[in-house]
């Protein structure tokens, strides 16, 4: 491990990334509920207010529309606000500002103004929380033009993708896999990162492609490991970006393996899996030996914590879909 590489949890990688952004560019601001002294409920902003002051790391009133609406105004003034929404389920009061203002203002101005606003959202389940703390609303944003949507699955991506999101001149919704916050990985702070929106093959394989992002990448890698013991070679693609989606990488993988299973926590119905299935089927119709299968949440409100293990796609549900795809 060279000197620029350190092992740290995703939460720490995000914290360091924010620190670096605040250091590098005086126009970068961090704002949200409890991001100051508390350092955020997940401590992602820990210590930042102490070091950068209250005027750059801003505790906001408890009003999400206000947070995004004022972030837009700050961006118009030349700032680069990095906002935090405390939990996935609390982004909806800001939905109007995000969808009708943030997403559309650059186009409305025929390109004459830019809206470099980042919205960080810890998302997904698996932490035993109460209602509204475990949702995966990414499809509700990805359908909307003008936004970019990404989600890292590991510490190095967390660090670099956040840097890139902050540098991007478009609004970026940055979905953080909250139940992986404490998962450690190597972060190379000197590596030149690739394209923010490029998918990567996280594990090569030949029999079937698993495509996932954020918290589900780990589940897919585990599934691939188990399948390997059973003599099946699964390729795992970490999508990393949900708008745009790097269909080329998925397509290339599928044209090698002939089969695709898309996995996400979000409900399957009208979810990212549908978009990927439709597009890959169109692109690779004659390569597919089975229909693209989808594993994800059910069409029901996110259940209470004691049911989330059943609700969330785990190893078994992924492998069940793999079995079905291979049996086709």
């Amino acid at each position: 491990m060279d000197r620029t590489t350190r092992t740290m949890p995703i939460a720490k990688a995000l914290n360091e990334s924010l620190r670096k952004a605040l250091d590098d560019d005086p126009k970068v601001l961090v704002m949200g509920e409890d991001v100051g002294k508390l350092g955020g409920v997940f401590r992602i902003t820990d210590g930042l207010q102490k070091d950068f002051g209250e005027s750059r790391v801003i505790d906001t009133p408890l009003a999400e529309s206000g947070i995004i609406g004022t972030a837009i105004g700050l961006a118009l003034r030349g700032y680069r606000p990095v906002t935090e929404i405390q939990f996935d389920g609390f982004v909806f009061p800001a939905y109007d500002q995000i969808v009708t203002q943030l997403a559309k203002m650059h186009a409305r101005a025929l390109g004459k103004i830019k809206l470099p606003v980042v919205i960080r959202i810890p998302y997904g389940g698996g932490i035993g929380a109460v209602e509204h703390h475990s949702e995966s609303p990414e499809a509700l944003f990805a359908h909307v033009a003008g936004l970019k949507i990404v989600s890292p699955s590991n510490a190095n991506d967390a660090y670099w993708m956040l840097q890139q999101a902050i540098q991007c001149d478009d609004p970026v919704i940055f979905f953080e896999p909250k139940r992986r916050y404490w998962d450690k990985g190597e972060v190379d702070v000197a590596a030149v990162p690739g394209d923010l929106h490029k998918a990567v093959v996280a594990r090569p394989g030949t029999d079937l492609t698993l495509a996932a992002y954020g918290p589900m990448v780990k589940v897919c890698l585990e599934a691939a490991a188990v399948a390997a013991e059973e003599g099946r070679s699964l390729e795992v693609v970490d999508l990393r970006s949900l708008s745009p989606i790097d269909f080329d990488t998925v397509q290339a993988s599928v044209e090698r393996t002939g089969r695709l299973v898309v996995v996400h926590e979000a409900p399957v119905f009208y979810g990212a899996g549908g978009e990927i299935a439709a597009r890959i089927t169109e692109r690779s119709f004659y390569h597919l030996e089975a229909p693209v299968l989808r594993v994800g949440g059910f069409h029901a409100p996110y259940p209470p914590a004691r049911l989330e293990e059943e609700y969330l796609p785990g190893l078994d549900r992924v492998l069940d879909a793999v079995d079905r795809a291979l049996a086709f």
Partner: protein
Amino acid sequence: MSVKSTAVGGSPAKSRAASRGRSKNRSGDGPEFVQLLTPEGERVEHSEYAVDLTPQELRGLYRDMVLTRRFDGEAVTLQRQGELGLWASLLGQEAAQIGSGRATRHDDYVFPTYREHGVAWTRDVDPLNLLGMFRGVNNGGWDPNENNFHLYTIVIGSQTLHATGYAMGVAKDGADSAVLAYFGDGASSQGDVAEAFTFAAVYNAPVVFFCQNNQWAISEPTERQSRVPIYQRAAGYGFPGVRVDGNDVLAVLAVTRAALDHARSGQGPMLVEAFTYRMGAHTTTDDPTRYRSDEEREEWAGKDPIARLKAYLDREGLADEAFYAEVGAESDALAKRVREGVRGMPDPEPMAIFEHAYADGHALVDEERARFAEYQASFEDTTAGTGR
């Protein structure tokens, strides 16, 4: 041409120090709020608000507060023991909750946030019901219409609109019930709360907005939400607002009862701000040492709502040792019942995931339910070597 200290019809343009200073907004002492019982337990009169309670009623309020605190403390313990996933303690807010809850009539309707365990108590909601959502076996799940006590609402501020709509319905029905909507100091910033004020005012809805200003929204002090006391917001929407000492159960009772009467007599909404203090952490996952001082907490311990009423009872000789012993025994029994009840609370069946997504059914839910049942059943037949 300049702005003098008073704009036409508006409020004084406060100096920056005065309007944003911590002391003013947070003191809560002095004549700025309605108080009927001093922190030392002395009874004081107020020109507009009065209560005249029998000794039995006074003891009842004491009992309510003690039992509520005990239940709350037990829940904190159960969380530490892993029986609950989370708990939002009301410690310190017993007077605000019992006083306001006891001001309601049976036919009134209450919309809580997620911390109104004391109010629930006054509405005869079984405390065990409150634990289900914190244990993670449901997301609420009691029948709101059984005690006219709506479900806990986690998304901040939303319930104030539901309360307002409900009150509009009450008015349409020609009923003389009132609706009581709880929210926090943090919630006062949400657009939904402002819209609730607007709708309530415009339709003259019989709803009382009850803000428990416990001075913190997780780690943020009230100055991050408002630079003037929250009760003042009402005037700008055309209805009265009043601040009450939230640690004084008598004052809270008197003011809330008056506000509910105001509402039910066709005079429309009212805002009550109960100035109180969150003695505990925001929830069991919170660490308040990161953002507030021990001194502040200590200062507020001196204003404890239960000690205050006890001092009054003792001073006036309204309760004896037998009474306190009985309340103590009742507390123990309640704690035991809660402890045992929660431990015996079964996990829901997996198929419950699909159970109540819709009232009238939905084809996709049916399909997914059937597939999931099949999938679950497949494990019963096999013993997979890979641990799958």
